[in-house]
């Protein structure tokens, strides 16, 4: 069911199986039939661990969404609340428990905190007088969720906001804990590198936690050679740029949530003879996107301009495979052909789906507006006129284009110019507030706090130095047969990935100057391994590096890292972990403050 998780360099299915085992054990602790009441936020992440069938096997008969009032009647022995440790949820649970029908046979209550229990929440339950109503209060440690064969995500949407805006480092604590779990399963990671305040904090916590476990030596041969912790605010630029890989564009345009995407249904209408075009589906088409689908794995990381060719090549292969049937003469041959049919049909469906998606995307990428937006982005990234008010942005505001589009562009200009001149910044802010409403003052304030938007304090703009030293702009990016990571943004090489690449070879010592220009400390730590666990590398064997993006990572960055893994003489393979998969839009959205205005 999750075989694609085990195909990578590191078998991430071990992690998933460990998570499933723990879930089963908890469910069995509550003997008898049960109903689960879900904190709605958790259903998506849980879907990556277990389907309903697993729950059903353990006598889960009903599922509800947590909401105020009474838990719907269900003839079950146990009611289990699956919740994040949040106070407002505790109040709802307390209400649920207290309004339980006294006339019905009593049901047992349990709480499962995800990812860990909280004294604060238990205290709140105690205050509400319901703490003793629970038979089991337990925690389900779900920090890093296997997302794909080389990808782990904590699916924590608000991590960036909490860390950089609210100075709440809870998600970093979970990160450190998650990395400890990972090390328990895959061995101690001997080398830790990092850049940024949060990275430093996580590394400190990890080393501290290791001391706490002193004595119970980890006897597993290390799978990872290196851990690289990167703060998202070391590279604020990359997520603002429009991703130009296939997967990146799907995410930019339709948004991928917990591995699923919802698409407009028209293009996917199954044309059956006799129905003649009526009854077009109105429900969005929901597709799961991961490497389990062979074709998708092949094309997702390509620059969109290379996807068309790949699709038509695939189409030829598939139709050739179907043509084979004419060559099948003997019974044996026919039998063999038939046995391959299901696989071939799946491939054909997959091809049809992706052809439709590619058409949908193409309509957008060939539009004038997309082109103009991209041109402006690329001007900023190459440092053209970043110190002046940009006409395209002005016109877009005047036409009241979506606010997030504007914010992405303005922030990008600010980042590429190391801040905007006060006059320019104030002009943009005024334009935005007058057009979209004064309430966005709060959002602008947030963007300034996290450094996405800032007044230029010194006249020195160090972005050009960073760009040149790290070769962030490659003039002749080859989209069809890439030879550099810059293909993922058709010219721009994501800063975060460049740092990763340079760490592997020739090492960060060569870029000390630039590292100092980027925010936060950079550091290196070593973790002692028990004797006998030192890996002896075979000649030509690649190193494995886990890159952890604190505060989120984009699909294009992942594509760039995969490209590095596959490079012939790269010498390093990457596994990627993050607090959340994001794009510029979802990222900015998470930083917005929208007071709900009462109607006067």
């Amino acid at each position, binding site marked *: 069911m999750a075989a694609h998780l085990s195909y990578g360099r590191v078998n991430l299915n071990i992690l998933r199986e460990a998570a499933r085992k723990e879930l089963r054990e908890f469910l069995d602790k509550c003997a008898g039939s049960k109903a689960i009441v879900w904190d709605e936020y958790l259903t998506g992440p849980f879907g990556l661990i277990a389907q309903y069938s697993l729950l059903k096997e353990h006598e889960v008969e009903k599922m509800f969404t947590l909401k105020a009032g009474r838990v719907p009647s269900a003839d079950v022995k146990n009611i289990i609340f699956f919740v994040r440790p949040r106070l407002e949820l505790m109040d709802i649970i307390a209400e649920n428990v207290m309004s339980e029908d006294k006339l019905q046979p009593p049901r047992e209550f349990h709480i499962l905190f995800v990812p860990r229990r909280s004294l604060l929440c238990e205290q709140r339950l105690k205050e509400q007088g319901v703490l003793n109503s629970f038979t089991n209060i337990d925690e389900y440690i779900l920090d890093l969720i296997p997302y794909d064969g080389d990808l782990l995500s904590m699916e924590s949407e608000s991590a960036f906001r909490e860390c950089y805006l609210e100075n709440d480092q809870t998600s970093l604590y979970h990160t450190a804990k998650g990395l400890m779990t990972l090390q328990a399963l895959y061995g101690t990671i001997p080398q830790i590198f990092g850049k940024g305040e949060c990275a430093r904090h996580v590394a400190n916590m990890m080393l501290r936690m290791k001391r*706490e476990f002193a004595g119970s030596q980890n006897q597993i041969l290390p799978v990872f050679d290196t851990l690289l912790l990167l703060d998202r605010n070391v590279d604020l630029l990359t997520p603002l740029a429009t991703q130009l890989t296939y997967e990146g564009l799907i995410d930019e345009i339709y948004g991928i949530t917990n591995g699923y995407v919802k698409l407009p249904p028209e293009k996917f209408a199954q044309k059956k003879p006799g129905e003649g075009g009526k009854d077009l589906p109105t429900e969005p088409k929901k597709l799961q996107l991961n490497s389990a689908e062979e074709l998708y794995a092949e094309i997702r990381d390509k620059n969109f301009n290379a996807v068309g060719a790949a699709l038509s090549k695939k189409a030829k292969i598939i139709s050739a495979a179907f043509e084979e049937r004419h060559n099948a003469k003997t019974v044996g041959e026919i039998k063999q052909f038939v046995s391959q049919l299901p696989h071939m049909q799946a491939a054909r469906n997959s091809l049809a789906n992706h052809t439709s998606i590619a058409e949908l995307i193409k309509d957008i990428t060939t539009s004038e507006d997309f082109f103009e937006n991209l041109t402006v982005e690329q001007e900023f990234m190459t440092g053209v006129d970043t110190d002046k008010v940009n006409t395209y942005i002005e016109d877009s505001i005047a036409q009241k284009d979506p606010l997030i589009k504007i914010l992405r562009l303005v922030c990008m200009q600010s980042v590429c110019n190391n801040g905007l001149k006060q006059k320019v910044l104030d002009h943009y802010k005024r334009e935005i507030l007058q057009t979209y409403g004064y309430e966005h003052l709060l959002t602008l304030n947030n963007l300034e706090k996290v450094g996405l938007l800032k007044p230029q304090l010194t006249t020195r703009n160090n972005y050009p130095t960073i760009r040149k030293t790290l070769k962030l702009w490659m003039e002749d990016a080859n989209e069809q047969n890439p030879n550099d990571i810059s293909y993922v943004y058709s010219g721009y090489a994501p800063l975060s990935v460049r740092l990763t690449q340079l760490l592997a070879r020739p090492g960060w010592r060569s870029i000390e100057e630039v590292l100092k220009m980027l925010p936060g400390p950079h550091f290196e730590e070593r973790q002692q391994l028990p004797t006998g666990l030192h890996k002896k590398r075979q000649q030509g064997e690649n190193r494995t590096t886990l890159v952890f993006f604190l505060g989120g990572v984009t699909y294009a960055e992942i594509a760039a890292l995969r490209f590095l893994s596959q490079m012939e003489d790269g010498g390093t393979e990457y596994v990627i972990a993050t607090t959340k998969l994001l794009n510029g839009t979802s990222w900015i959205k998470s930083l917005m403050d929208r007071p709900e205005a009462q109607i006067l």
Partner: protein
Amino acid sequence: VVWIYHKSQKADEYLREIKEQGLLAEAVRQCVEAAGHEQEAETQKTLLRVKPLVCTSIKNLAHSLFSLSISVSAASFGKCFLSNFPPELFVIMCRDLRVLNAVRDYTVGIPLTHTQFKQMTVQVLIDRLVYRKLYPLAIEICRYLKTPEYQGVSRVLKHWACCKVQQKEESDEVIARTISLKLGEAAGISYSEIATKAYECGRTELAIKLLEFEPRSGEQVPLLLKMKRSQLALSKAIESGDTDLVYTVVTYLKNEMNRGDFFMTLRNQPVALSLYRQFCKHQEQDTLKDLFNQDDDHQELGNFYVKASYKEKRLEARVAHLQSAVDEYNKAKNEFAAKTTEEEMRLLRFQKKLEEEKGESLVGFSLHDTLRTLLAVGLHKHAEQLYKDFKVPDKRFWWLKLTALAEKEDWEELEKFAKSKKSPIGYLPFVEVCVKHHNKYEAKKYVSRVTPEQKVKAHLAVGDMEGAADAAIERRNEGEISTILSRCSPTTDRALVERLNRAKSTAAKK
């Protein structure tokens, strides 16, 4: 069998015999077992007639047993002698006997039989030694038997330390140092347990000193709270990075301290302060305000009032909040925010007034949407006034009016507007907006006014290939010519395509 033990001259003979019967292994095994039971009673010793061996220490017995078999093997039967006899039995028995011998010593006085020992397990034996405070022996035994540190040495050390803290005659300083020296980095030591013991004996200071050595903050913090060392608990919680722990201490502090002290404490701990702010944001809005006040954080106070204003249902209340925000922003020297918020208040009042006069619902709209609505319903004068009062940039106002009029399909007004003065946004937007509203006829009116650079685009927008071609050829712009060519379809006039191609090649030559 026992005869073998005697250094009898017949030994070799007996051995051969036993060997031939294939019983040697069994014989040796029995010997080993017998040795184990040997200490049961004095009477048995005599019976066994292996007195000389027994009189030496148990250890020697085992050694002799071991060396005997080796020497026998070497002397008589060659290297393969007893090759399949597992050595573990010997080794384990040797160890067990040594341990038993040690505890049977009269200074200890635990006369255990081997069977009893096996029954009760090493764990229990260690416990008994610990109860008798025979710590050094217990530790020696743990080390000798290679018991995992966590169950062995560390456990004994912990008991020792717990005992140590009760020694009233020694100072806290000395005890803490002794304990830390002895325990060092021993695995799995729970300093908090030792500290709890010290605290129970009324030695709080010692307990605190001991807790310093505890690596697990989860253990440290609750005890510190119990001992009313909340400040220390708070810094420990923060050090751990476990925010739930920090919250726990903060809630505790909040209940224990008076508000002033509580706020002061938080002020010195920024991490705790930010977490508490988060808590207040969701749970206690008023406290949040007090916190900002205490810190003279005027910027945040301004934001706070802005947020609060949106919760008000009456205009006056909302404006009052905004005024407070303006005051705070001024104090924070955030001129921009203050001015903008004042602007917002003015807009609200304007909207309300107009709403009452004209019955058009406007309150809460952005300035942009207000203007648009006014233009849409034909209140041009009011729109003009707003545009001047709020210093809306010309460019944006032109865009706004253009789109609003096009949407209304008020083409006459639009034309008047276009002619009112020179457009700050040029005339291409006029063409494009008209096309967007499916009015090519109107669009064409503006094509001639478009700047030369944008002419081609304008012609193309209205679908005039000829015009576009003329403009591009006139400008000898290769890029533009190519754009037009890419838009040509098989139905396009042949002559036009040829003309473009010719122009393209001459432009390219230049």
